[in-house]
């Protein structure tokens, strides 16, 4: 399997971008030949959905016409009856969907293929096999898993495609509470969607001024930017079949091209990191989780 191509996938947009920004972003992405698959859909907050569903539907058409595989992603923490209806509709449809909350399984026709997203708690081969019996064809493992752990899981689940969270701020937590609203002294129910001010999340620092986290509405992300710069042979050996890049500001096309080059062995891990830094990531590069260490750590390729 050493020769099989590693797919490059663009994860769902986690931030509350304007309709124009979304349209421009996916228009550019559609022209990008280095990209195989694009996930679309509001994963973080159902309140954003009415504002972005139009632009995302247009993006889906454009991406599909450009030959990309489009996969719709469900909300991760449904909070209202409307959120639940949205998940039900998406799950009941025929197309490939990414499931980010167990709720969706209640509506998914048994055996209909789906992707298990990183916000589901699938940590081991036994749990992954449970999903496979229900139609799971691909797993993007929880970001806490080390590469050796992913390798063990993949080895015990033949036929399951593994997509690694390879670039972007790490999605660390979800809450019933909206921190963007809380910072502004607003209540979640009248939040005025203030999360639109921070296209990569709102910086959270320690009292000493050390950069640490980023909040994105009800979601908390890392300040550091995951960059899976491990030797490509190690990724292949662990069963990785796809690399997921999470949308951020900065030059995403450059990030996509860098990962394509890296996946094809044209860029070394060091070159990958250098290219990613040049693309203007929203924080320093991190990869600790993949090495079984604190997620915030950065162990440069040797």
């Amino acid at each position, binding site marked *: 399997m050493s020769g099989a191509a590693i797919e490059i996938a663009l994860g769902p947009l986690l931030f509350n971008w304007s309709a124009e920004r979304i349209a421009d972003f996916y228009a550019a992405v559609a022209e990008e030949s280095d990209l195989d698959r694009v996930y679309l859909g509001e994963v973080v907050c159902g309140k954003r959905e009415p504002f972005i569903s139009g632009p995302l539907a247009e993006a889906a058409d454009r991406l599909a016409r450009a030959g990309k595989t489009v996969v719709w992603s469900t909300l991760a923490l449904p909070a209202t009856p409307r959120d639940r209806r949205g998940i039900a509709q998406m799950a009941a449809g025929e197309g490939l969907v990414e499931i980010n909350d*167990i709720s969706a399984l209640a509506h998914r026709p048994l055996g209909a293929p789906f992707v298990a997203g990183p916000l589901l708690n699938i940590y081991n081969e*036994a749990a992954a096999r449970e999903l496979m019996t229900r139609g799971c064809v691909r797993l993007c493992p929880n970001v806490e898993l080390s590469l050796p752990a992913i390798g063990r899981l993949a080895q015990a689940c033949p036929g399951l495609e593994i997509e690694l969270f390879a670039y972007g701020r790490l999605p660390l937590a979800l*809450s019933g509470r909206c921190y963007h609203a809380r910072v502004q002294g607003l209540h979640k129910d009248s939040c005025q969607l203030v999360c639109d001010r921070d296209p990569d999340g709102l910086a959270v620092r320690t009292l000493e001024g050390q950069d640490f986290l980023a909040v994105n509405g009800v979601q908390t992300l890392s300040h550091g930017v995951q960059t899976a710069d491990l030797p490509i042979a190690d990724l292949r050996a662990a069963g990785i079949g796809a690399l997921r890049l999470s949308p951020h500001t900065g030059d995403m096309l450059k990030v996509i091209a860098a990962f394509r080059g890296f996946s094809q062995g044209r860029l070394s891990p060091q070159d990958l990191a250098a290219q990613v830094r040049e693309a203007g990531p929203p924080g320093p590069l991190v990869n600790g989780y993949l090495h079984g260490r604190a997620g915030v750590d950065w162990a440069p390729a040797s």
Partner: protein
Amino acid sequence: MGSIELVCPAGSPAMLRAAIEAGADSVYCGLRDETNARNFPGLNFSPAEMKAAVAWAHDRGAKVLVAVNTFARAGGVDAWRASVDSAAVAGADAIIVADLGVLAYAHAQHPGLRLHLSVQAAAGTAEAIAFYAQAYGVKRVVLPRVLSAPEIAALVRQTDVEVEAFVYGGLCVMAEGRCALSSYATGKSPNLTGVCSPPDSVSLEETDGLLTPRLGGFMIDQVAPGAAAGYPTLCKGRFEAEGTASHLFEDPTSLNAMALLAELRTAGVRAVKIEGRQRGKAYVARVAAAFRAALDALDRGETTAPYEARLTGLAEGGRETAGAYRKTWR
């Protein structure tokens, strides 16, 4: 409307006895390893202690619920299966599970063993609960602490599965089991190892009375001389955003929903749960007695008000909140 079951924590056999003597209907506990979500040093039960504890509890008409509620390690699932087997051998009345793989094993291997869905599974919708009930025969769900009381009432109406809700103790501000803040700073996943903000990654410096807790080197807070300080859990820390320092995620409060017991009872909540297996027998004796008295008062048609002051001083950081049960929390 039946009585609500009072479910109390037991970090040791001594604490289990204290909880039951103080009026707990059920206690929950775990084995001394990574398979339960309170894997702190010196805490929990050996398989032999668990067996003896179950016998002791059953003699007194109390139930023992065994938490096997962390997520199994890739390549190491057998340890979680062994814990399920130990709980079954000990005669546990139910096991509390979150991991799909562990649920599947328990359902297949121990069909007579009652399954409760752990709060760590964060099943907060009727659909998610229905999935676990249909796929694994789950009989009870412990609700995530992000739902408001009216939402719980609506949920109970939509499900046949028994509902258990936390009413007292440490409050997770994030959806339980879906939080990696601690591992981002320390490398140890609470979901996998059963320890959030692990003590070996905590440091405390005190200079001129100013206490500085750190987790994995990150400053979590600075506590003025004499001011109350909580265990340095990341989500209860103070951080800076938009130029202002605050308890951004959650104030260092702990949950006390005693005043909402009547509402939860009307909503059809079947059991209420006290957090705090790590807090010892003095704590559980006091909290169990207070909630026993309050629940008995409800059964007599009286108010819980006289019992609400009984727990003053036990709260983390000295402050209490009704948390997400009141929608204003959001």
